């Protein structure tokens, strides 16, 4: 499942688009897993000659395919966290006119978006395209801990152990959705977890 049509929701929920090559002398593409396919869809030799790709494979084998596109710079990191210092460094040295493309999971796009916005790019000027897993990066509103790759609703907070209901309420600052205790009034009364979009 590479492409997924997210159901319409509240205004807070991010909406993703489809990447398109934009004019500019420098391009930064950050992707994880199946996000590689969105890059391959828009790659031309001309564009790749001006592009820095930062890729987190998450166990996929797209790395070689991206490298074969011949980007100006290619970096494959073992995890998003491991690639953050590089992302920050690239943004710190970048100039206005840099085009940023984010693609892959929501967690990757949200966190990289936060870095790009902090560096001074208006969030509306950053392109995104969702590909791959629909799992979410969730913040527990009670203990503030972040649980990555949440696939079910409800789920158990990886930090405090509360049963959390998956909300569509999103924070750009935290790059996470909000998880709220589902059995606060009636402890133990927790519905059977199912897929977030089931």
């Amino acid at each position, binding site marked *: 499942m590479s492409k997924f049509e997210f159901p319409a929701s509240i205004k807070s929920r991010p909406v993703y688009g489809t990447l398109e090559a934009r*004019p*500019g*002398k420098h391009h930064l593409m950050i992707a994880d897993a199946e996000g590689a396919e969105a890059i391959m869809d828009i790659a031309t030799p001309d564009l790749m000659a001006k592009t820095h790709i930062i890729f987190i494979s998450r166990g996929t084998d797209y790395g070689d395919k991206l490298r074969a596109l011949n980007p100006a710079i290619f970096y494959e990191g073992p995890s998003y966290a491991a690639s953050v210092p590089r992302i920050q460094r690239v943004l*710190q040295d970048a*100039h*206005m*006119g840099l085009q940023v493309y984010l693609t892959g999971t929501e967690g990757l796009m949200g966190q990289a978006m936060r870095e790009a916005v902090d560096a*001074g*790019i208006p969030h509306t000027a950053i392109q995104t395209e969702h590909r791959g897993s629909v799992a979410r990066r969730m913040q527990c509103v009670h203990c503030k801990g972040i649980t990555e790759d949440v696939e079910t609703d409800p789920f158990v907070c990886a930090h405090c152990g509360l049963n959390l209901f998956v909300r569509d309420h999103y924070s750009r600052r935290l790059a996470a959705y909000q998880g709220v205790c589902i059995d606060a009034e009636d402890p133990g009364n927790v519905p059977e977890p199912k897929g977030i979009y089931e």
Partner: protein
Amino acid sequence: MSGAEKIHVRVTEKTPLNALVTRFRFEPVDGGLLPTFSGGAHTVVEMKDGDITRLNPYSLMSDPYDQDAYTISVRRDDEGRGGSLFLHNQVDVGDELTISYPVNLFSLDLRAKKHLMIAGGIGITPFLSQIKQLDRAHGNWELHYACRSEALGSYVDYLTTTHPNDVNVYYDDQDQVIDLENLLDGQPLGTHIYVCGPKGMIDWVRGKAADLGWPREAVHYEEFLAPQPGKPFEVKLAISNKVVQVGEQESLLEAIERAGVDAPYLCRGGACGMCETRVIDYAGNFIHRDHWLEDDEHASGEKIMPCVSRFEGKTLVLDR
């Protein structure tokens, strides 16, 4: 009553700067404090010229935190409909005027890491208040200011003495031109552009920025359009059931107001969108001059911005 709230002021200084530009200082008649504003804001000055009331927007150039007085600088426009001539020739120290509360359609984006200002001619005025605001906040800014000649370079001396390292001046008559491509290329991430000046300059900067991949959201511009005179025409106001003649020297908005119909406005310069009016019926041609409507809206014949746009033809019926 449409428009922003009003303030009664007295002219306490009238200072000619050069052959074309005069500065006016306004202090509140009641001796109270004026509202603070934000850099880039303008005020709409009411001018009673015989039986015509003109309301022209002028950028506030004083310190936004100075509540004792506002100052504006007015460039005399001998070709225009007379608003600037009225201020230059008929308004003197001691006179009372009505001005609007400050309205800002050209504010600084304070998320910017650097503010790159580009001014042409009298377009310098909003930057004077923005610079004062940024200096208080230790903001990072840089000004590129093009003017016709040294003699007509309003505030050049003031700017270059107070900010010798941040102000760059270009004189047309010495063939000095802003090297725009090199100026924009290489600006650090988080830079925002602000441009105020003639239309040609605004289009030039916006076009170059777009070519270089700058986000639209990081390019801010302000051009006040003064309504232009044109052929007289007739307008029917459907809601108020009135037929109004729009004179050669008045704008459609002014004619509507003269007929006693309270129509919304804010900037009176085709920029804010407030005066947008639905066209019910027409036979003829629109002369759209605003920056608000999109091209397809201009072409649709369904909307008009009466503060700056006109009409030529037999019938025009507005939803007003």
